[in-house]
């Protein structure tokens, strides 16, 4: 009886684990099944590099959306990454204990706030500001980049901070013992040693920015056109799905799933990269 229970419990845990991973397989299969026929019909090259998205006429080119995703993500990284890394250094090295005790929950709250709330704030606060002071419609790459920069901060900050805190204390102490100032020690010893963790945090932050949908729908303007300046409205891969999925049918719906495939592949590459970077670090430690 006891042996039976023992075996049964082991089996159950195995089955549960198996179900968890089969979910990933299921997602992959269903999105592929639904999306690949259209890619096959249009041709991968025309689908990805096609400049015209006109589902009504049967034209499915997503290059403007790819350009949109890349430019907004890039903008978010340019704004968010330096601030995020500075914050992680602040938390790990400079902040007095009482301050970091307040600061960490604040970052957590930042991560928990619904993305639609960020989008809304962008819509009523950031967009008018850009329109009034910089010109253009306000709904723009810049607005999207600012909102996304805020949204990737928790990812960048928490993972960078963890990788800085994980360093052996002797690293910094050794540097200080050599007569370096605190900042010199951070700059020449701490940051290079924590590099892989920081890079991974940036990569994961970029993954988050690429994948965000609702917040950017609200601030990007969603025009399907190649942008010429950061004040132009654009549409990203995610917003393309989010906006049109509600009413799409037939080939149009398939095309949105095909957009999903592209997004899925990009995210898998980004995540694989992040996992690869951190794995390297672990090997080096041992």
């Amino acid at each position, binding site marked *: 009886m006891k042996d039976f229970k023992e075996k049964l419990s082991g089996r159950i845990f195995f089955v549960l684990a198996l179900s968890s991973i089969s979910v990933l397989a299921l997602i992959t299969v269903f999105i592929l099944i639904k999306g690949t026929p259209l890619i096959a019909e249009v041709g991968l090259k025309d689908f990805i590099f096609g400049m015209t998205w006109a589902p009504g006429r049967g034209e499915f080119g997503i290059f403007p959306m790819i350009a949109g995703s890349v430019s907004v993500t890039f903008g978010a990284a340019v704004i968010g990454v330096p601030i995020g890394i500075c914050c992680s250094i602040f938390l790990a090295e400079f902040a007095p204990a009482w301050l970091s005790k307040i600061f960490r929950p604040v970052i957590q709250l930042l991560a*928990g706030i619904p993305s639609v709330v960020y989008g809304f704030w962008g819509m009523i606060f950031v967009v008018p500001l850009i329109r009034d002071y910089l010109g253009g419609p306000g709904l723009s790459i810049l607005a999207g980049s600012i909102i996304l920069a805020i949204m990737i901060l928790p990812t960048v900050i928490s993972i960078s901070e963890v990788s800085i805190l994980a360093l052996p204390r002797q690293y910094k102490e050794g540097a200080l013992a050599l007569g370096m100032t*605190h900042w010199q020690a951070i700059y020449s010893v701490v940051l290079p040693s924590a590099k892989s963790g920081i890079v991974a945090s940036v990569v994961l932050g970029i993954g988050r920015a690429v994948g965000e949908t609702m917040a950017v729908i609200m601030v990007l303007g969603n025009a399907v056109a190649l942008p010429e300046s950061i004040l132009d409205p654009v549409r990203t891969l995610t917003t393309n799905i989010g906006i049109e999925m509600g009413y799409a049918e037939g080939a149009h719906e398939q095309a949105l799933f095909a957009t999903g495939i592209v997004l899925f592949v990009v995210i898998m590459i980004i995540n694989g990269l992040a996992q690869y970077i951190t794995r390297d670090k672990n090997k080096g430690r041992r």
Partner: protein
Amino acid sequence: MKLSAKSSEKIAKSIIWAAAMLVVAVLAAIVIYILAKGLPTLSWSFLTEIPEGGGAAGGIASPIVGTVLVTAVAVLIATPLGVGTAVYLAEYTKGGAITKIIRFSAESLAGIPSIVYGLFGFIFFVMYLGLGWSILSGGLTLAIMILPTIIRTSEEAIRGVPGSYRETSFSLGATKWQTIYKVVFPAAIQGITNGIILSVGRSVAETAALVLTAGSSLRMPTSLFAPTRTMAVHFYTLAMEDISPANAFGTAALLIILIFIINVGANILLNRFISNKGKKKEAKGGKRN
């Protein structure tokens, strides 16, 4: 001109302080702005009345109920699945190929954008399984979405249980299952709960995956097969379609308050978990010396 070590130290320090303060300021700006505009709308009737005119009038009672139900479905499905997977990863595998595959899958699942979960939920639960736009479809989609969080936090909590507990339990004649059930689970439960609470927060905040799976009905749901609109989706609709700024702010304020409560709850649990662990370590270290 090369800066002296002292002045570069000063400059770097000020930049870093400025960045940190900027982040706090931005968060404060968002939260205070939304709360200032939204709190006046929050009233008992706003919470208990069903929306009318697409949300232009009335309250948000049905979105609140929808949010609770969708979240409940998600957590009830994902918890056994996620905790079971974590137990398997932490207690049963010895770092073989299967472990690597499971961990890779969990980490990959964690990075998939919610809109892709939405696409999957739509094609699989709504269409293929015929569940339609419903609480069930939305909840199942969210269950998959929060699964990686639950797996990761539970696995960390289980691995944090000292090995001596397991050894002791085995040496007293316990089987593996008895050890897990009687010793490991009770010791890890706070960490596991913390992960579940964070997942509740994520479910409450989610929009993209639910727009495509749960529908947008504002009627009070009568069964799990009924469509619904969660608070986050309702807020999005109100804001985007410019239906009622006052009600939009009110809903957003409620969302922020909820997330705040959830985070505080998770933090209290986690701190207790950590301080318990600290005590155990202290006790042990003390005796070793």
